Each structure stands twice: as C-alpha cells, then as structure tokens.
C-alpha cells in the first residue's frame, strides 16, 4: 500500500468539522513525525498562520517533531507507576520517553508505542492485553453504568441490543424533548467528570439557547492521573456512550456530536470507531437519526496529549484547532461552545448513565445512592490496594468500606496512610479523614473534592513528600501557561517540594501557603485552583515529614 499524498489527506478532511487534529494525526502517522513541510502544508490548507500552528503543535505531548519520533516508546511515570519501577523500565527501553499517567493504573506499567499499549513491570514482561474489566461489587450492589459491562460482546451493536441497548433512546423518542429533560432533572444526575454540574440543567440551557447547529461533546480526555474509568466504559460499553449522546442530542436539539478522546487510548479509538460505524449502519446516527430532516452526526476526534484539554473550554479550543488555553467564562459553552454555538460538554460516565435512567426511571437512579445522595459514582481505585480497579459505588458509601470491604484493604495487608482524591486534584486525605463518605459535600468539608473519582492509595512505605513533589511536578508540566498564578505557582511549589525555597521552616511554610492561597483564589481554571490542595493537605496531615524535608 502506498502512502497517501498530501492532497489525498487534505481531500479526506476538506469541508468536514474540526479538521486540524485529524489532519495532524494523518501526517504524523504517514511520516512518523510532523515535519516542517507537513506543518507548512497543513497551515496553508486550513489557512492557519504558520507561527500559530507551530506553537500549538508544541503544546501537545505526543506530536513528535523529530524524525521517527512517533514510534518511540512512552513510559508512564505517573504516581502509581513511579512506585512500581517506571524509571527502571524507562531506562531499559531504547529511545523511551516519559509520559504522564495514561490511565492504566489498574494494570501497571503502560507503555504507549505507536498505536499499541503494552503493559508490564519490566521490559521482558511487556505485552498487549485488553484493559481490565471492573471487579464485581460485593453483596450484589446494584450498578448503573456497569450493570451490563461484564456481558460478553456488549461492545458490539448486536451484544448491546441483546442486553437492552438503545432502549433508552427509544424511550426518549416516545416523548417530547422537554419530557426527557424533566426526567434527567428528576434523576439528580450531575456531571461525573468532576465539576458535578446538574446534567438536566446543562441540557436545558443548551435546548433554550439560540444558535444552530448545537453540539454534544463527550469529554473522553480522561487525563487526571489515577483515573481510568472512562476507558473501561468506552472499551466495554461504547454504545452506551453513543446512546447517551444521541439522547442528549434529541433532548437539546443538537445535530452533531464529537467524542474528544485522549491520545493515550489507541485501542479505545478503534473500539469507538467500530461502534460508530455500526451505529451509523443501523441508522441510529445519520441524516435521519431523529426522524425525517432530524440529523445527528457523531465523530471521534483524537487529542494529542495535554491534561488541560480535559478542561471543557480548552477541549473546545483544541477541537476547533486553536491554541488549547482555557477560555474566559462567562460566556459558558451552553451558549458559546463549539464554534461559539450552544454546546453540551458531558463526561463519558455522565453520558453512559443516561440510557439506564431513561429505561429504569429517574427514581430508580436517584435511589441507587445512599441517604440523600443521588445515584452512583465510578471510583478508579489504584495504588497500594489489594484489588485495584474501577468500582461503581453508591454515592455516600463510606471510603473505608470501599477500601477494605470492596477492594480488600491495603496491598499485602499493609496499612494505608493516605489516599488522593479526584485523582491528584483533590490532594490527600489521611488519618481520621479517611472516615469520610464518598459524596461531594462530605469530601469538600475536608478541604478536598471527589471530582472525577480517582483514588490512589499509599501505604506507610511511601514518602508522602516525594509523592507530593511528583504530583506538583505533574501540574507544573501540564499548566497551560496562560495565567500567572498557575504558571509560576506550580513551578515554585515543585521547587519547594524538591529541596528548594527558604531553608528556615517558618519562611518555607509561609511561602508555600502564600503561593497556594493566591493560586486557589485567583487562578483562571481548575488546574491552578486545585494544584495547591496537594501542599495544603501535605502540611495538614504530614507536618513532621515536611519539617524533616525542609531540614534536609
């Protein structure tokens, strides 16, 4: 097979939505890197200033500008893999580069090589294998998004249909869009990507906003270290996400959708594309998706490695081919989203929750939670824990119950000294605060948040100052560079956790606290606002370790 020419690649994408990322990927794949000639050709084709395109390409981790760079192995050095020999593996593999957490914490250590993900803790053990299925919950606890995920062949449209698939959409279409919005409102479903905004309200705002076409964007950029739940949902139940997006499209009047998938999930890309082909062939997606003259088009767009692109306005800029800085808000995406038109940006888990809600009813979903908390939350649990994996827990479940009863307690019977919340963004919980229940109000009362639901466990053998340093280094690396407090603050906090800053303890603490407070209160987006929770919680729970660290 001969390689496609530039003009063949351009022809494929001419006139289509959001063409920059797919075109760059096409050249990246064809040439093995992004050459100057390729960038100049793409800039001319899309009429993007070449300086802008060059700058934007350098923003992403995985676009390689060096010959044969795309094929170089990238080894996860995230918080979990770092504790399992990632640096040794990195040194073992020729030409390997480090990469931040690619969402495989339940099966360390992932190595991304071209379009394959290999896993293993040493070079000899590396093998390509399917991502782990979620463990079965104890005592028959009822699940929502995971209820059918272990059903064989669920990822195919036939298997999906045989286990109740596309019935939610059918139920929605028997009703007016307004009634669908009412049902989502009544279910209490809120954003499962971290922000927790009520889904029904978001959709209603899109439905009521003026401007066409409207869009549904699935945020599948799961970049938070320690989070790998969306990967499991997409790998094993891709039609649930497609169905959720179709219901969202029907309810809001949107005519197009995009799944923005992180670069680090190449096998998930193949699964989604095959599911989309099936759904298109079956007529669920296409010019008459919701009836005559009621189209809904749905495509995947692959990211290129940038944590900030999980922030919805960065994601939209990235999708549009712009520099992926977050946008100033207001206006919000519900009125000014993709191409400045009304857009609902929803997380994978949120969208996957929608079909079962429509099939089983709003009350059913609401009652899955404990006490006054509605529904469920998938927790990606990893680290020093006996049975890491994705667990769909009732909202309000005690954290201790998850750690001990569901996941078998600390690995090797060792005690867990701390966990992270919201991946890394929620900082640490430790000591008596491990007695929280898993719901947003309770966790926020401890100065943290549940967020996207990544929880990493660390036993007493772990140096928490070093864990904090690596976490802050991640935030510094991923800070987009737009707002001052985040760009400078993450760097300065990293240096202070790495032996820098004042030698005198009181001054060191004052600097760390002052940096943290200003980052929290003045940063432009969630990254800079959340990053100092790492140092804040480190000082709260591990003051002695900090004292020893500063004393050197």
């Amino acid at each position, binding site marked *: 097979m001969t390689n496609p020419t530039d003009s063949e690649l351009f022809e494929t994408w001419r006139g289509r939505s959001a063409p920059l990322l797919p075109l760059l990927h096409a050249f990246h794949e064809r040439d093995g890197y992004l050459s100057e000639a390729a960038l100049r050709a793409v800039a001319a084709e899309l009429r993007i200033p070449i300086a802008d395109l060059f700058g934007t390409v350098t923003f992403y981790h995985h676009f390689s500008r060096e010959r044969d760079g795309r094929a170089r192995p990238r080894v996860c050095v995230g918080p979990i893999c770092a504790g399992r020999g990632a640096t040794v593996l990195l040194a073992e593999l020729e030409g390997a580069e480090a990469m931040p957490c690619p969402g495989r914490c339940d099966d360390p250590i992932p190595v991304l090589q071209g379009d394959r993900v290999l896993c293993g803790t040493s070079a000899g053990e590396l093998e390509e294998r399917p991502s782990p299925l979620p463990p079965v919950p104890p005592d028959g606890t009822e699940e929502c998004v995971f209820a059918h995920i272990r059903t064989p062949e669920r990822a195919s449209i036939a298997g999906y249909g045989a286990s109740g698939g596309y019935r939610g959409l059918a139920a929605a279409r028997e009703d007016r869009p307004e009634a669908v919005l009412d049902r989502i409102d009544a279910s209490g479903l809120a954003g499962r990507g971290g922000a927790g905004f009520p889904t029904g309200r978001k959709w209603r705002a899109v439905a009521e906003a003026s401007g066409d076409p409207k869009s549904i964007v699935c945020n599948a950029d799961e970049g938070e270290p320690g989070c790998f739940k969306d990967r499991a949902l997409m790998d094993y139940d891709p039609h649930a996400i497609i169905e959720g997006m179709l219901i969202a499209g029907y309810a809001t009047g949107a005519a197009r959708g995009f799944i923005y998938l992180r670069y680090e999930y190449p096998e998930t890309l193949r699964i989604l594309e095959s599911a989309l082909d099936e759904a298109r062939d079956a007529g669920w997606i296409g010019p008459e998706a919701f009836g005559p003259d009621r189209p809904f088009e749905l495509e995947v767009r692959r990211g290129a490695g940038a944590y900030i692109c999980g922030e919805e306005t960065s994601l939209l800029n990235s999708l549009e081919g712009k520099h992926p800085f977050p946008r100033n808000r207001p206006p919000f995406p519900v009125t000014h989203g993709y191409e400045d038109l009304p857009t609902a940006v929803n997380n994978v888990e949120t969208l996957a929750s929608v079909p079962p809600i429509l099939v089983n009813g709003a009350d059913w979903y609401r009652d899955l939670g404990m006490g006054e908390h509605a529904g469920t939350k998938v927790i990606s649990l990893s680290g020093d824990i006996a049975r890491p994996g994705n667990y769909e827990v009732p909202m309000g479940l005690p954290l201790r119950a998850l750690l001990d009863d569901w996941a078998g307690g600390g690995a090797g019977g060792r005690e867990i000294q701390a966990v992270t919340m919201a991946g890394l963004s929620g900082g640490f919980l430790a000591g008596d605060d491990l007695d929280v229940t898993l719901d947003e109000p309770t966790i926020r009362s401890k100065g943290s948040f549940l967020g996207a639901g990544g929880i990493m466990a660390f036993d007493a053998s772990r140096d928490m100052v070093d864990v904090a340093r690596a976490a802050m280094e991640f935030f510094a690396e991923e800070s987009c*560079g737009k707002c001052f407090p985040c760009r400078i603050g993450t760097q300065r906090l990293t240096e202070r956790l790495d032996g820098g800053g004042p030698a005198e303890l009181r001054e060191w603490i004052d600097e760390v606290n002052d940096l943290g407070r200003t980052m929290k209160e003045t940063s432009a987006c969630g990254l800079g606002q959340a990053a100092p929770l790492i140092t804040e919680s480190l000082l709260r729970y591990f003051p002695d370790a900090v004292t020893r660290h500063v004393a050197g």
Partner: protein
Amino acid sequence: MDERNDFDFEITLDGEQVPVRRGETVYEVSERHRKEIPTLCYDPRLESFGACRLCIVEVEGARNPVASCTTRAEPGMRITTRSARLDMHRRVLMEMVASENRDLDVDPLSGYASGEMATLLDRYEARTGRFSGRRSGTSRPDDDNPFILRDYDNCISCYRCVRVCAEQEGDYAISIMNRGFETQITTEFGGLLKDSACTFCGQCIQTCPTGALGDLKALANANVAGETEKTRTVCTYCGVGCSVDVMTRDDKIVGVLPAMDGPANKGALCVKGQFAFDFVSHPDRLSQPLVRGEDGELHATDWDTALDRAATGFKTTAETHGRHSIYGIASGRAPHEAAYMMQRFIRGGFGTNQIDNCSRA
C-alpha cells in the same frame, strides 16, 4: 458625541452607584472612575485576556475574586476594587512575577510600556526576593536584527506581543510555544524574526510591560546625556498621519514612541516611523552645501554661492522652457514645515502645481 445619557444600568463600585453601558467590563467601568486597578496583561487596544490576574476585584456573592478585565458588568453587581485581601493577592502575584525575571528595572528607552512591571513592584512593595527559583524564558541574542531586542529572560508571558501582532498588526509573526513555565514566545519553527512574517513594526516592543522586547535603535542612545523630552508630531514618512512622540535629549533625537492616543494610528507605527530616525544625526549626512565644478565633481562651498547657482539654474530653465518645466518633489525625511515651504516655493515661486512628495502613499 454626547455620551452622558447612553448608560443602561448601574452597579455599586466601592460603595458608590455608578452608571454602566451594556457590554462594558468591570475593568472599563472602574477605569472611568479612576480606580487604578493594576494590570500587566492588559492593553486597552486588545481583547481582554485574563492572564495576569492582577485586575481581580471582589464581587459580592462570589467565593473567589474575579478578573475585572474579562468580567462584564451586570445590573446590580456590587464590586470592591480595593481590600486587604486583594492587596495581599496582588502583592503575591507581583512577587511571583519578579521571581521569574533577570532584571526588575530596564532602561525606559526600551519601550513605551517597559516600566509597567517595575512601577507595580514599587506600588505593592514586592521587591522582596521571595519565591526565588528557576527563571523563565530564553533570550535570543542570536537574532541579529537591528530593531527588536528579544530578551526573554525578562519575559513574563503576558502574551501582549503575540496579541498585538495578531490583533493590531495582523502579521501573526509570533506565537506561544510549549506549556506552563516552559512557555516561550517564538516565531515559526523558532527562527529569526527576519525569516518570519514579522514586518518590524515594533508594536510588540511598545506593548511589552517589562522591556523583554526592546527598541534597539533607541537603546543605542542610552548613553546620551540629558533629560528625555517628548515632542508630539506627525510621522513624515507617508500620508497616513500617525502621531508620534519624538524623544530627544539635549536636542538629539534618541527615539520615537507611537502616540497611543494618535487618531490615525492608536499606538501603531510601521518600521519606518518607528525606527528610521537615526539619519537625522548620521555622520554621512551633508553638513555644508556642495556645488558641481567644471571638473564634474562636487565641491564644498558657502550658502550664497550654492543658492546663487540653484537660483540661476531654476530661472534659466523657467525662462527658456516655461513655468511647467519645473517639478518639485519633497522628501519624506524632511520635516512637515519644509514640505510646506517646498510647495509654496514651487506653486508661488514658479506658478506651477507640479509639486509632489515621496510620502504620498
């Protein structure tokens, strides 16, 4: 234009009811009421960007302060522009910015806005040396263009240069490379300005708040003694009529600043208006009149001799061939007053309209 009656609603600004036009930002309203809110990434000619966060204000009901430059005023808003909390954040932000740069003070000849950071460091008493660590930005001493200093060790990543290049000049010559603390202002593929789309208009220099981008032509005069005086005039190089402030020291031109309030240019200039002033005192300039001798060479002489020769030539030509045989063209490098005299000379002196100027663009 009478603007007094076109307000749409009121907000409360530091306890006072003030009128607002729909669409105005909180910063714009505050500026009108002389609140002197600090900024580093703001340039009134550019889209609000929201990077430096110094313009934060408190909005009643909001947990965290908001950036006033990107927040639209809404009816009934209650805004506080000064408080101990805001001062604390602004001081910490200034200490953070100071920690990433090599120099806190630069020569004012660097550019129009080059003292903005230093002024705010003094205002917030932020020259404390706290938060020290690695510096950001890598300077480009290899860029040997004669106009623009690229001293990114003093860059604070406010992106005013990138934005002015795109939004005001439309050149898109420079952009932002990498992320976070590694952010770097760059051209396409990291090259030199002369190999980029840069037209050397110098607007990036004039909006830079730290002198990371500097006016090399002006900085070459840093050692000229004397107080800097500014004289408002109009650029002579073409017919657009850009307003400039010519900087002089002891009657020597040391630099040109664009007039931010110039009606034709609003702070914009081109490479000629910005940088091409050094011919005035260039040693190659003629310092005395020359006349051509019998030998065909030019020889120094006195003004009477030179003027006699010129007058004779003009008169003879006009008498022999008629008044329309005379054509005058004035130089764009001459002052406006000289250009005016030239046309009076040709029109009044010879009675012909054949007068032009090389600036007629």
